[in-house]
């Protein structure tokens, strides 16, 4: 079986890997190069900590389990860094939303520990005294998107076609299957087609109203092994929950005037001794560029939570565009009316966590196997009734 996988981000690469494992011949196409978009500009959280109970939380738990498995069995060995996520509340509002959220996580079977009072400075000496409650979410980890992509492609045996965007889907005579895809280099035929084209899917599938870019700005500091060691895991500010709307509360930040721009705060001690700090959620702006206003705001918040960060220097800032679906859930499943075409896109900020497990689900779907995950909530045709094509 020959399969075209369009999009060499983490979802497409994972799909190529699992198809390759099953003996398929895979052509992996990308408009530019592997991990050139969101997968190469992600914070790398493999995490359930900020998820609301529901299909995404279920998928995230499967996603984390698969990382553990791939880490142990070889293909991702050394690339999945296990650590807890610590959600930190530093105000009454944050504490309220965090308590509700912790209950939801525990009810879903996630292993959590509450840390309060004198235990906070003992457990987390780097943290500001403003922290009033910490929820430790165990069993999570961190993976660098572009490293995972590189490893999966190398192990997939796929033929990689760089600078090869899919310009058109080409149906066969029956009209119920795709014969292949059109690219600037010409027609490429296959037995099946996977579209893991992130924000590029909008134009390709006419999803402009459903799937839109949501920019995020991220920061990398220089190395500080001592401070790094004083942080047992990633910190997520309780405000991240407010920003992300994981829990709706009356006290959530008021909608700002002008284009929406949310600020969350995640501080992740990387294995290099550096810190990754993020980030924004913006429904506007150039995806490649970062601005002083956001960088300064993120760093001010970060220093307020981890005061010793003030002694470091900022090494890099970068931005990427998540592919965000209107209802917050990804689009995964067969394209309506085409039996051999599958779409997998719209993972917003969860691509690194969900990429491998969704890539596997899509590969299994094409191989007529049980996907291992309930894909019904992610059905790509769920917007059709309202007139949005998919």
């Amino acid at each position, binding site marked *: 079986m020959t399969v075209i996988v369009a999009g060499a981000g983490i979802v497409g690469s994972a799909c190529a890997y699992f198809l390759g494992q099953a003996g398929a011949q895979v052509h992996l196409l990308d408009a*530019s*190069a*592997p*991990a*050139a978009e969101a997968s*190469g500009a992600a914070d790398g959280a493999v995490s359930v900590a900020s998820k609301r109970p529901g299909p995404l939380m279920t998928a995230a738990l499967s996603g984390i389990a698969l990382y553990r498995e791939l880490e142990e069995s070889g293909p991702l060995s050394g690339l999945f860094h296990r650590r807890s996520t610590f959600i930190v509340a*530093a*105000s009454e*509002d944050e504490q309220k939303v965090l308590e509700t959220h912790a209950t939801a996580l525990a009810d879903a079977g996630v292993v959590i520990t509450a840390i309060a009072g004198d235990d906070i400075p003992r457990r987390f000496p780097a943290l500001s005294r403003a922290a009033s409650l910490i929820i430790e979410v165990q069993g999570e980890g961190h993976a660098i998107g*572009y*490293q995972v992509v*590189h490893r999966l*492609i*190398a192990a997939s045996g796929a033929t*990689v076609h*760089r600078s090869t965007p899919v310009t058109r889907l080409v149906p066969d005579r029956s009209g119920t299957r795709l014969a292949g895809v059109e690219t600037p280099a010409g027609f490429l035929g296959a037995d099946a087609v996977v579209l893991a084209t992130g924000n590029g899917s909008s134009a390709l599938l006419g999803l402009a109203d459903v799937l839109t870019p949501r920019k995020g700005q991220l920061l990398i*500091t*220089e*190395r500080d092994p001592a401070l790094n060691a004083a942080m047992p895991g990633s910190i997520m*500010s309780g*405000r991240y929950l407010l920003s992300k709307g994981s829990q709706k509360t009356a006290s959530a*930040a*008021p909608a*700002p*005037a*002008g*284009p*929406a*721009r949310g*600020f969350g*705060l995640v501080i992740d001690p990387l294995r290099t001794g550096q810190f990754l700090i993020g980030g924004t959620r913006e429904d*506007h*702006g*150039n995806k*490649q*560029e*970062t*601005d*002083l*206003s*956001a*960088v*300064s*705001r993120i*760093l*001010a*918040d*970060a*220093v*307020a939570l981890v005061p010793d*960060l*003030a*002694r*470091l*220097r*900022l*090494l*890099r*800032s*970068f931005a990427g565009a998540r592919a965000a679906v209107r209802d917050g859930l990804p689009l995964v499943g067969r394209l309506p009316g085409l039996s051999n075409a599958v779409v997998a896109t719209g993972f917003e900020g969860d691509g690194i966590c969900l990429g491998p497990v969704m890539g596997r689900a899509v590969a299994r779907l094409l191989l007529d196997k049980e996907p291992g995950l309930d894909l019904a909530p992610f059905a790509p045709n769920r917007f059709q009734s309202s007139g949005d094509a998919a």
Partner: protein
Amino acid sequence: MPDITPDTLNLTPDVLIIGGGPAGMSVAIECARAGLVVTLVEQRPRLGGAIFRQPVNGVAPLALAAGPERLKARLFKDFAAQVARIHCVYGALFAGLDADGLAIVEDRQTSRVLPFRPRALVLATGAVEAVLPRPGWTLPGVTTAGGLQVLMKETGRAPQGRVVLAGSGPLLLALAAQLIRLGRPPLAVLEAGDPIRRPGASLALLAHPSLVSEAASYLATIALARVPWHRGAQFERIDPCDQALIVTWRDHKGHLASLAADHVSLHDGLAPNNFGLPAEARGGVKSSAGNPLVIRVGDCREALGAAAAVAGGEATGRNLAAHLLTGGEVIAAEATLARHRSAQHHIARAFAPRRGQELATQLPDDTVICRCEGRTLADLKKLVAESPGLSARELKLNGRFAMGACQGRFCASNAARLLGELSHSADQVPVSALTGQRWPLRPVSIAALAAAVADAPQPGSSTKDDKDIR
């Protein structure tokens, strides 16, 4: 926009100039003469740039050749006449242009981030030394020739011990002559090219008498001091040995030769210091409405030397002033530079290495390419072999070339060149494909950035949302 600092620093000057060398000073002089509000940012405590670097207090300046000395005297005299109208910020570094069009400067004297919003941003950041990787080039005691020269200009002293100068280009001769004048002649100058065997190029330089007399004075000094100038020397390696360094090369006949030294200074020519800089406006058109007009002058535009930097800076400064005052077109000073360009072209031909310069095949696999992260040629070759068609960005992310603390300053151009060689690409791999154009261009204090949140002139696109956190 309000002045935000106690010393009433104007964050919205007409012209913000980055770099106080010959090019930046010349633009500042012309714009100040025309009555514009000019701010000049210089990373060192004094003006002059690398070429006219001034010594620290109490040290006699190093003598320059006659031509450069005259140029320097005129430049500093003209600048002094306008100095009251030019606001100089010393000890400050340009961190880049952000998405909102702010020119971000880190003032290391006051530990502040200064968000400038000028009408025009003039980049005059000079040249950088090209240094090719070689076995042993990261050993202690190995420096760049330019670095050694700057040290000598600032302190007025040569380093203790035996010095070998190696690589290619006229700067090695200038440095040798300066070492001799300070009473510490180098053991040898190892030159990869052989200008004497390229008489065509060398003769063509006769059309540039000031360069010829400058070169003649260096060569006379070197000959008098009996310092050997080994031309056509193919550099092999540097090895540590007790407290010394053993430098090994092949002479023009292919025989191995070596010398023991305490310092080795490497130099392989000059290149524009345009690392990560924002793109220049084409035909006076800004990249976006909120952005300043970005212009490059001097060596950071094209490495043609100090005389060209002054000529180009003056012409660009006059054009820019006319543009900002009356809306005239900003035209790069092409005509002024043609003569300098021809001279540099002949110099490059004269000093062209006698053997081809394919790095990937000449260097041993264990040669360090990225000094920050210790990545070797073998690492790079492996990655390219594994992934046919590998893009520069993938090389960076997965090979960690240009990812370290220097942000690629030392390895990006070499890594891009090696990627081009190894992938047999007909086109050169642009260095910017590895480095991008993101800010900060250099590591910037987080404390200063965090404090800038209150200071930054509010750009129109950002929102002033809640300050609910602490």
